[in-house]
């Protein structure tokens, strides 16, 4: 059974999330503010944390920073719209994904499942996302067992996205991993390569979805 920690200042929101999560078999603990949330996290060692960005007192970003000093637990950000810069900041200091309030329960649960799945998947030299297969040993990709011809950059890019399959990856994170931050106009090159990848993968494989102002998400078709 997974343990989830909810850090949100809205009591009703906490109560509802508790009901939703408990109905899916989660064991739930909660905190109404950041400092308490950190204590709960240390005490209960949750498997996943749902963190509201708009906390009073110590804000969500600060909580996340402190949490990341000692914990690797998957964190899902709960945010309202129009906070793109804060969302990106949260993702870059170690949040795993976000949902935007108001969110559907299905979306929330799907995101939770995906972010809990991560980190344990890197045991083999092969990444599989739907019809797409990446062989990290030989740097080869295939789609429905048909080889996919990719340039080294495209392969590196697809690898980053596939490693985070179903999760958002910010533009900066991609840049860092693929180009090591060396590019004159990074986003332009990134767009070009994404474009090529989309064409090569076509409709058969997973889709590369753009989230404006944030980054990309590889979604299984």
């Amino acid at each position, binding site marked *: 059974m997974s343990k989830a920690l909810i850090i949100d200042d809205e009591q009703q929101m906490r109560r509802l999330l508790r009901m939703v999560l408990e109905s899916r078999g989660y064991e739930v603990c909660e905190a109404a503010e950041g400092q308490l949330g950190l204590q709960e996290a240390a005490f209960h060692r949750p498997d996943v944390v749902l963190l509201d960005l708009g906390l009073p007192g110590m804000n969500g970003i600060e909580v996340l920073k402190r949490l990341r000093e000692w914990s690797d637990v998957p964190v899902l950000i709960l945010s309202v*719209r129009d906070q793109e810069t804060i969302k990106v900041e949260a993702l870059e200091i170690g949040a795993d994904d976000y949902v935007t*309030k108001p969110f559907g329960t299905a979306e929330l649960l799907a995101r939770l499942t995906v972010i809990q799945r991560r980190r344990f998947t890197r045991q083999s030299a092969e990444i599989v996302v739907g019809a797409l297969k990446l062989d990290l040993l030989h740097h080869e990709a295939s789609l429905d067992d048909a080889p996919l011809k990719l340039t080294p950059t495209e392969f590196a890019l697809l690898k980053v996205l596939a490693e985070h399959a179903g999760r958002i990856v910010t533009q900066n994170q991609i840049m860092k991993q693929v180009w090591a931050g060396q590019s004159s106009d990074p986003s*332009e090159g990134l*767009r070009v390569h994404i474009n090529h990848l989309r064409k090569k993968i076509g409709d058969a494989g997973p889709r590369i979805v753009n989230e*404006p102002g944030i980054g990309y998400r590889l979604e299984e078709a």
Partner: protein
Amino acid sequence: MSATDSPSAPPSPTPVSLAEVGQYSCGLTLVFVLASTCWVLLPYTGDLFVALVFLMAIVLAGTWWNRGPVLMMAVVSALVWNYFFIPPQFTLHIDKPQDMVMFSLFFVVALSMGHLITRLRAREATLAQHHQEREHLLELKHRAELLAESERLHRTLLDSVAHELKTPIAIIRTALDGLGQGNPYAKEIETANRRLQRIVESFLEMTRVESEALEPQPDWCEIGDVLHAATKPIQEELAAHPLLITGTTDLPLLRLDSRLLAQVLGNLLHNATRYAPAGTHIEIAASLAGSTLELRVRDHGPGLPLGAEDQLFEKFYRAPDSPAGGTGLGLAIARGLMRAMKGDIEAHTHPTGGAEFVLHLPVKTRSAA
């Protein structure tokens, strides 16, 4: 002496002003009056006293007058002292060597006095000017700080209002999901909640557009991504209207704020779904002319009310027989956002029926960059 002129003195060689002419004549008069007075007193005081009186007059004049008149006074009083007071009187000739020395000293002291004092005043004036400039700058800075502060306050207020309004909507949404889809009453609440969410978001967006707290953040993007972002939030409404998209595949990468443009398109599409009968197409055509992106969104509804092509972008404007449940803000926001991006939007009824909205947006393209 003028070679040591301080460089910090303000550019003074202006043509002799009226005030300066006055000072010259005053200087001459003063020397004359002092000379006459001392002439009377000479038997009791001796000629050295006269020199001191002259020097004092020069110092005093220096504190008020310009350099020219003071130097003139120095020269004239030296000559007067020599001519009338140093024996032998009524000649410029000097007999005794010590009187010669005295005269030279007087001349030097008078000249340097005049020079030093006027230079001091010039420096004082520059300092005052600098001070004034600094005050002015400080005031400007203060004003800018105030403005930034009020903007931040505004933003904080907007954020907190947004949070307060959106939280209950989010709670209703989550609770409804828990109720399940079976209940028809729940379905009604959900519809109403979605509507409420739209209204709240429209009001917040309108406030943001009007407060000019809106700064476009252009980045390279693919028009397909923009369309995806625009249509995703209104998938349900668009289900009844097949989209016909043309011209997007030929476009190069564009540099624009995709979030804002997506919102404009979303508003236009949502509008179209409200006015056009279910089942009719909505057409989106994209093209690039030079560095201007043109997007046309056309529906097959009743078209626009005659003569209202511009009015409908006004806040709270509602077309005469528009369906209930709109805020009259969607198009006003669309125009506000387009203008924030240095573009614009216009509308007309298409010759073959239906409303058509045309967006123009200056963009950088990949090849041009």
